[in-house]
């Protein structure tokens, strides 16, 4: 086509296309997850790398088989299965039996993702459902956490340790949280920031996760709104629950899967609202549910359940927060005027 023709040709919109591809975005997410992966190997040994590798391979193989059996085009190139695999493994303790990891992958990829039509069609976050299925099925395995650096000690198989949240559980009164924080088993805030505490293999190190989150924000893969509003809501509620005890708030923000969930899970494109207002409503809802489950629930941690519950509400959030197109009159007003 000559230059003249290009100018004279009239085509239908869209006229400008972005260079972004799903594969590129997913590779950015994988890069952002790398610091946490490296730290998990440092903290929990090569066993955690084995869990992550098993999960990724299982996800990719299952996705390939699913697409083949369902006679759909191959979507391995978008790397979304790899991200799901890493995220699911990050939500499991490093001692998890590998066949159970594969079952979690099967639930995530086959049931949640491919049964509903593949990438972009899943109504909840696949990795979180995989984790919840494993949690309800094998509670003894998903809730036994080894102490960091236990792999370096010779002659010790595994030293289990209670997570900070498990130590807070059931004592969410102003006095109870102080005594829980002063107990000898509770790690210091600095230790928690660098992940030296019991927990799932990818969730303990807040520093690495925040680093990944900043990278994603700079690359414009995610907007910082969901993580900030999510974490902010939890901070606010915990400030009230702890009667203004800032140390307690810091403990709550650094413990459990909050950082991992807020940065990498709640910001999933498919299962979070598109518009800014909706994103804020979604994130605040996640924060409220997480805090309520932690304070009043029978489980010590509620990040996965709260994100899943808000995922299900996303279509309603979208309809309720649809922006009014410029120059139009609100429906209610229209009706009122029609009545006149």
């Amino acid at each position: 086509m000559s230059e003249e023709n290009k100018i004279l040709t009239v085509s239908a919109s869209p006229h400008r296309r972005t260079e972004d591809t799903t594969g590129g975005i997913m590779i950015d997410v994988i890069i952002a997850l790398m610091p946490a992966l490296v730290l998990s190997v440092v903290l929990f040994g090569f066993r955690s790398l084995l869990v992550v590798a098993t999960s990724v391979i299982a996800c990719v193989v299952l996705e390939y088989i699913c697409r083949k059996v369902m006679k759909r085009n191959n979507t391995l190139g978008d790397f979304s299965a790899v991200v799901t695999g890493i995220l699911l493994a990050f939500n499991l303790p490093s001692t998890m039996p590998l066949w159970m990891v594969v079952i979690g992958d099967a639930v995530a990829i086959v049931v949640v993702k491919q049964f509903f039509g593949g990438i972009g069609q899943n109504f909840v976050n696949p990795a979180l459902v995989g984790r919840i299925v494993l949690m309800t099925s094998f509670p003894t395995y998903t809730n036994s956490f080894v102490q960091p650096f236990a792999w370096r000690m010779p002659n010790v198989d595994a030293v289990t340790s209670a997570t900070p949240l498990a130590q807070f559980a059931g004592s969410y009164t102003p006095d109870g949280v102080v005594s829980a924080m002063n107990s000898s088993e509770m790690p210091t805030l600095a230790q928690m920031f660098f992940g030296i505490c019991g927990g799932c293999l990818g969730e303990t190190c807040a520093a690495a996760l925040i680093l990944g989150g900043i990278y994603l924000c700079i690359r414009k893969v995610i907007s910082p709104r969901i993580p900030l509003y999510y974490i902010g809501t939890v901070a606010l509620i915990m400030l009230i629950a702890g009667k203004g005890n800032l140390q307690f708030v810091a403990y709550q923000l650094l413990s459990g899967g909050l950082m991992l969930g807020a940065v990498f899970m709640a910001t999933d494109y498919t299962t979070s609202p598109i518009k800014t207002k909706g994103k804020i409503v979604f994130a605040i809802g996640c924060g409220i549910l997480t805090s309520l489950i932690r304070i009043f629930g029978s489980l010590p941690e509620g990040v996965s359940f709260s994100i899943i519950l808000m995922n299900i509400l996303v279509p309603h959030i979208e309809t309720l927060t649809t922006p009014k197109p410029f120059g139009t009159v609100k429906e209610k007003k229209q009706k009122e005027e029609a009545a006149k």
Partner: protein
Amino acid sequence: MAKQKTLREEFTKGIIKENPVLRLVLGTCPTLATTTSMESAIGMGISAAIVLVCSNIVISALRKVIPQKVRIPCYIVVIAAFVTIVQMLVKAFVPSLDEQLGVYLPLIVVNCIILGRAEAFAGKNSVVASAVDGLGMGIGFTVALIVISAVRELFGAGSLLGHALLPFPAMTIFVLAPGGFFVFGLVMACANKLAEMGGGKKAELGGCKACPMADTCQKLAKGDACEKEGKETVES
């Protein structure tokens, strides 16, 4: 009925092609609630089948006596009578089953399958055809319950009929409600595939024709309200 079916067809349709649980999606509540173990599923299936056959026979015999306007209360009275009989028999001879099924045994009274067959079939057809239809539907219900409960008990508790089988830890989620929904959906998908292979109607996705009662729906046959609604939703 548009075309006369043979008794054999009336009997076999309930097992796969028009399976009450898996194809007509009736009686979902007892299906999910009683399939946590195979024992209770078999008990539930047989009790419901007995009530279904008996109520179909009586309702069919009375179909010319029952006034059209009050037919539903009349059907319920007949069904409730048989449920009471079955409940008393179960309480007397298999009290353990009665304990397992709990409230779901008396709830057979409001089981959609039984009322659905009374309304859609027994109220319009002869006694013999109704009896055969009830028997086929009852067997279809029992088979569906047994298949779902076998999967749930095997993977959720690691056993079948109480005999431990699995050498590795079982997945508790299968005996919980979410696992019930998962298995129910998967078995339903298999039944749809089987029915299609057997020459049944392909399962529709969306629209008025996707309704499990589309075949017996009088409104749809007339192209009435239902159809209009369907068009409206497509346009909007």
